[in-house]
């Protein structure tokens, strides 16, 4: 039986007392203070802070206890199954955490002389090579901070490519399937493209007929997730690549679902020109409640010249940062990437090697198909699109029937799952499945934990028919019961900060 900690922990501003201190920063030495005198004589009057920031005042113990209690009201991969589809919530090896906390990494400034950072440059250089090998691309840039950031870079590379060819003005469209992640159209739009959506066929794959009709001399490229968000491998990838390339477009690989292909097949071999990798999914680095992640981008030889500066170079003896890249698009962030995240991926690849990574892919697929098999037959759930074809890393069920028969929706199922100490799958995505439950178990969970999930799913579907109230009112065992999300976004009640909350409360009284 699961029962999450439910501290009645107030917002930190209501804790503590005036005058309490949690941390005292070092003081400037006496001689320095004497030499300079009163700071106010240095600071121009109009730029001095006259009102103290209204921050809480707490002792160190209070701060520690407050955040410890908060952490107890959270759930991570270490707590149990976290089958969020397309998010690849796998175990985060602890050795990688340990390595990422070494001062020999933590205390490095990005502008240090190259002679003092040879170690980290060597790691990054090798990681680039390994990721290029794994994705079947020519060169990899480690700079993007997240998958969507990689997508932005990818679409900017398309822009640069077509610009150099002199037909950017004409090539104004990026095609995305209707099953695509929301980031794909958003990234395309950010890079200045119009978005054209192509529907999926009955098999859940890109409809070739629709794709042929969609491509034209306006096509800049196609963004594709493969296996797609239904967990199905795009069976016509050959033909898709041919159609897009013949139209003069580039093929972009959304790497959110790379996990099942590791060391089994490579996007580059399938004709993808640009590939992003979600390090925080496929390469086991923790999601940290939303980030930091890393979204390296691999490209063909032809596109490599456009990658952001600096590139990491190696002359056989020394590693360097090379800014001399006249065709580079420039930069999409400061410095060189989320290095502490990338270091973990380096250690992960080193721990597994080719065989280990292949096993990761295979077991992730095996687990997804096992869950799919075990959930087929759950009352009220259906498996849309080709129900015989094996899935890859994830499978998508629909609770549409369940909802129409019992009133219990995908959302209700998700909430009820929490009661059993299981995280919910991704819900209401992909958009092409009504009442979608998108389930990705990853390779890291053992059969017993997968069984616990499927058994509870069956139980919840049963409850929907027998005691629907239990499901409709879930969750019961989490830190808080169901939240009022409408209140959170209504202009009258919206409180996006403590000061906004105080202001609204004052208005009420």
């Amino acid at each position, binding site marked *: 039986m699961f029962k999450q900690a439910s501290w009645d922990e107030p917002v930190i501003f209501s804790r503590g007392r005036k005058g309490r201190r949690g941390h005292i920063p070092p003081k400037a030495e006496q001689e320095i203070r004497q030499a300079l005198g009163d700071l106010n004589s240095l600071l121009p009057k109009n730029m001095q802070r006259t009102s103290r920031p209204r921050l809480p005042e707490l002792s160190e113990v209070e701060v520690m206890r407050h955040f410890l209690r908060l952490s107890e009201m959270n759930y991570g991969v270490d707590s149990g199954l976290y089958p969020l589809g397309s998010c690849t919530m796998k175990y985060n090896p602890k050795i990688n955490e340990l390595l990422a906390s070494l001062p020999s990494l933590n205390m490095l400034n990005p502008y240090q002389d190259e002679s003092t950072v040879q*170690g980290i440059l060597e790691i990054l250089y090798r990681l680039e090579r390994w990721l290029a090998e794994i994705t079947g691309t020519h060169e990899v840039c480690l700079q993007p901070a997240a998958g969507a950031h990689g997508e932005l870079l990818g679409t900017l590379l398309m822009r640069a490519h077509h610009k150099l060819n002199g037909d950017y003005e004409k090539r104004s469209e990026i095609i995305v399937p209707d099953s695509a992640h929301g980031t794909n159209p958003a990234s395309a739009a950010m890079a200045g493209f119009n978005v054209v959506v192509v529907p999926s066929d009955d098999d859940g794959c890109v409809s070739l007929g629709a794709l042929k009709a969609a491509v034209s001399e306006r096509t800049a490229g196609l963004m594709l997730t493969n296996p797609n968000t239904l967990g199905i491998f795009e069976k016509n990838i050959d033909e898709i690549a041919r159609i897009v390339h013949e139209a003069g477009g580039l093929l972009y690989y959304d790497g959110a679902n790379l996990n099942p292909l590791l060391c089994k097949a490579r996007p580059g071999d399938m004709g993808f020109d640009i590939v992003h990798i979600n390090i925080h999914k496929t390469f086991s680095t923790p999601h940290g409640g939303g980030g930091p992640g890393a979204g390296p981008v691999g490209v063909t030889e032809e596109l490599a010249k456009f990658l952001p500066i600096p590139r990491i170079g190696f002359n056989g003896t020394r590693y360097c940062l090379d800014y001399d890249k006249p065709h580079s698009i420039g930069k999409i962030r400061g410095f060189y990437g989320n290095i502490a995240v990338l270091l973990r991926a380096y250690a992960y690849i080193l721990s597994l090697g080719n065989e280990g990574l292949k096993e990761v892919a295979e077991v992730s697929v095996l687990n997804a198909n096992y869950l799919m098999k075990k959930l087929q037959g759950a009352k009220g759930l259906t498996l849309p699109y080709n129900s015989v074809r094996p899935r890859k890393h994830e499978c998508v069920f629909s609770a549409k029937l369940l909802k129409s028969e019992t009133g219990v929706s995908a959302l209700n199922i998700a909430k009820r799952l929490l009661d059993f100490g299981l995280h919910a799958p991704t819900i209401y995505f992909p958009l092409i499945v009504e009442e979608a439950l998108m389930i990705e178990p990853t390779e890291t969970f053992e059969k017993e934990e997968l069984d616990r999930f499927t058994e509870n799913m069956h139980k919840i579907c049963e409850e929907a028919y027998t005691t629907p109230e239990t499901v409709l009112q879930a969750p019961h065992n989490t830190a808080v019961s169901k939240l009022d999300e409408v209140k959170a976004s209504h202009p009258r009640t919206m409180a996006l900060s403590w000061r906004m909350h105080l202001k609204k409360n004052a208005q009420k009284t």
Partner: protein
Amino acid sequence: MQEIGIKSIDELYADISQKYRLKKPLNLPHALSEFEVKRHVEALLSKNKTCNDIPVFLGAGCWPHYVPAVVREIVQRSELVTSYTPYQPEISQGMLQALFEYQSMICELTDMDIVNCSMYDWASALGEAARMATRITGRKEILIPKLIHPERAVTLQVYAEPAGIVTEKLVYDKENGQINTDDLKGKISNKTAAVYIENPSYLGFIEEQVKEISREAHAHGALFIVGVDPTSLGILKPPGEYDADIVIGEAQPLGNFMNFGGPLLGIFACRDDMNIIRQMPGRIIGMTTTQDSSKHGFCMTLQTREQHIRREKATSNICSNEALCAVASAVHMALLGPEGFRELGETIMYKANYAMQRISKISRVKAPIFNSTHFKEFTVNFDEAGQSVEEVNKKLLQNQIHGGKNISEEFPEFGETALFCVTEIHSKNEIERLAEALTGILEGKSDVQASKLG
């Protein structure tokens, strides 16, 4: 496999054409044991020289600061580290409340009303701020200072160009580096979407004419965007008090290590105005109650701005952000409190100004090049001494000291100039060592020594 009815896992890959199935192993390293991995990575990293090994006087957008032990303890809590974006708020209250508190404390520091729960970094936050300003005003021109961090300027350009945004640089006063307000008045018009300044500036001095710039921007219906280093805000006037509409900046110094430049933590704040809030990029956590109103709680809100709902019409494509870094910042801010922030700001300013004074006394050295008040970074010019920054830094390194960032290529008009950074982690001793080494190098004495060592 029995349950699924397969004999080999390869059957699950049968739908991938044989020609794409890898037939031989990829060229990857052999798998190592955990111990071997640790030894290997430690050995590689030990080739680095860090600011724990030698004094390093570098900042320029990624700064060395002390991270209190409690911060490390909290951000290693596995319930936080291994969680995903809090899509299911009831089971993710810890992360949500911590992020709400991060937002709320940044509000107090900057004197703004709303903060999102992070952008990738300052540079990308600037790009997003420019795009947001054009969505709000319907205008396409952004005025930025000439003395901006060059990497930020390039990032802004890359973010802005696809949206048809044009950036124009404001010249500075030759004497004190401050933005030339006559130039601002000449360039601003009813086509200006926003005026952007940085405080402290990239070169470390405090921009003083903030009220005037703010008035000028608002008089033309443009937004006023301010970039900040939050460690200054215990002693420096917060941008909310000079009517900034959007505040961005880099919160890495609050609880996060440099890590060779990433992950960082982009601040993004605005005012309580629905027209502005609706155009915000990134995730925002809101306070609410349970549906039965029995308890307060937190959830992601205003998600209709975001990519997973609005797709190509979203305010940004950002999805994963820097949440755990924001939690680190929240813990750090809670530990410091108002008094700690004042003390931190004072210590930094004392030490940096002491170092600046000390170096300025060396003959034929100019520090700083601008006659303005400096916070934690300052410029040092070696033109009169007839040595290049590259030479000076090389000799400093031979003396086991890392000098400032060479900015002579970024800003050729300043000649041989370096940007030095001093924070609370630099001791008076280290500052003296730096000054003495510089004296030796520039007065020629250590040339002999350097050539011997070299």
